[in-house]
């Protein structure tokens, strides 16, 4: 007997097919499913149509062009962690869940889930990424810094598909780290990403982002300003980390109090600034 169910599962083979399927009331993108399956099971997410985008071959590719990297939205976190060199985004991808989760979970899914504690989000901010959204209504590029609007919320409309994440070519290097109670299988209590670029040992550009310290991951340009024009010495590192902590707007929740989070952010930020600095100096030496 053939029965039409209230839930429809459709697997798209092309982007065009996927966006057609998404132009439907109650349609929801299904990528790795590591969040959606549990969200649906708990009743937190309702979908009348799941549009599986994992079989759209072009969406799982990486391309590089003169230093710029375009990442397909369904690239898995495991693939990303192995295929690309160290950066804040890759550091974050390697920290999500366990290996089983990283083998299924996609970078696009991690971004669109928009958890304030999402480990790949801060890296995207400091790496100045741009997100390419496509729907039957057209295309648009959204800077990562404008993408997140609240816990679980982004500017993406329900009929839009995140197609690619574009990282512009840039000098310098970035790093991300988080504080958790356990070494793995935990959510960030706080997270920090930093990008630095240096000329002749002096920082000429910097970017600092903090995660799990507000409703969305956020850039703290005031912290980055403490690094520009310095040799990233102990004084500059301490000043930047203190400013980052002062701008954090954490909440009390089951994983930590706001006071505790503010206490953690400062030493964590120092550590991440030093790691970004170590990486950028390796790049500088390598290019000589």
């Amino acid at each position, binding site marked *: 007997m053939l029965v039409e169910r209230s*839930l429809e599962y459709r697997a798209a083979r092309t982007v065009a097919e996927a966006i057609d399927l998404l132009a439907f009331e109650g349609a929801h993108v299904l990528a790795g499913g590591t969040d959606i399956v549990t969200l649906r099971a708990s009743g937190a997410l309702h979908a009348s149509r799941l549009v599986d985008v994992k079989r759209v071959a072009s969406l799982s590719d990486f391309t590089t062009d003169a230093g710029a990297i375009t990442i397909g939205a369904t690239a898995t976190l495991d693939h990303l962690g192995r295929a690309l060199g160290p950066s804040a985004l890759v550091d974050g991808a390697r920290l999500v869940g366990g*290996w*089983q989760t990283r083998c299924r979970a996609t970078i696009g899914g991690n971004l669109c889930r928009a958890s304030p504690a999402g480990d790949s989000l801060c890296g995207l901010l400091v790496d100045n990424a741009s997100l390419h959204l496509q729907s039957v209504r057209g295309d648009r590029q959204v800077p990562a810094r404008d993408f997140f609007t609240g816990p679980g919320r982004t500017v993406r409309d329900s009929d839009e598909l995140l197609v690619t994440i574009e990282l512009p070519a840039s000098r310098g290097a970035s790093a991300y780290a988080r504080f958790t109670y356990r070494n793995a299988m935990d959510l960030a209590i706080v997270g920090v990403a930093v990008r630095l670029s240096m000329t002749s040992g002096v920082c000429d550009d910097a970017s600092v982002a903090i995660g799990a310290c507000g409703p969305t991951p956020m850039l703290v340009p005031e912290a980055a300003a403490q690094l520009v024009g310095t040799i990233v010495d102990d004084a500059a590192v301490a000043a930047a980390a203190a400013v980052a902590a002062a701008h954090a707007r954490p909440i009390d929740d089951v994983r930590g109090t706001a006071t505790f989070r503010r206490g953690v952010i400062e030493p964590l930020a120092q550590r991440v600034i030093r790691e970004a600095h170590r990486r950028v100096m390796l790049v500088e030496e390598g290019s000589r």
Partner: protein
Amino acid sequence: MIVGQPLQLRVNGTVHDIELEEPDVLLIDAIRSGCGLTGTKLGCGTGDCGACTVLIDGMPANSCLVYAVEVVDSEIETVEGVAATSLGAALVDRIVVADALQCGFCTPGIVVTASALLRSVQGSAIDDAAVRCALAGNLCRCTGYAPIVAAVLATAEVAIAGPARGATGS
């Protein structure tokens, strides 16, 4: 999707016709109830414990977080298939020798995840940290992990000595 049509799943090299009553039947339920392969265990059901780990096209995944319809184009390997390979059998032997289980509920998932790791590094050395990183998503409440890690490292030494027959890791 229209239910009532059998779904074909390739599990351990065999095609199984599964009747889906709902389009969102989980892979673990399809494997256990549809294929009758009960080695895969349901622990938490939320992707935290790893007891339900299977290989999807050679990569470990929690089968409680995957709908069966998502993997119709994929090769699924369960603990039954993994343990039938020479590498899997060697790992199971070493888990027994190392006393790396007590209640045994997590063991199928650990065998599957560790086999994926051992296949991926075949022919090269592996250290304690690599094993612990790969197995971070497999919880064991009995052993304290040390004998599990030892069993995987002992199997790696055998795998370095000679590639295991039947391994299909990609």
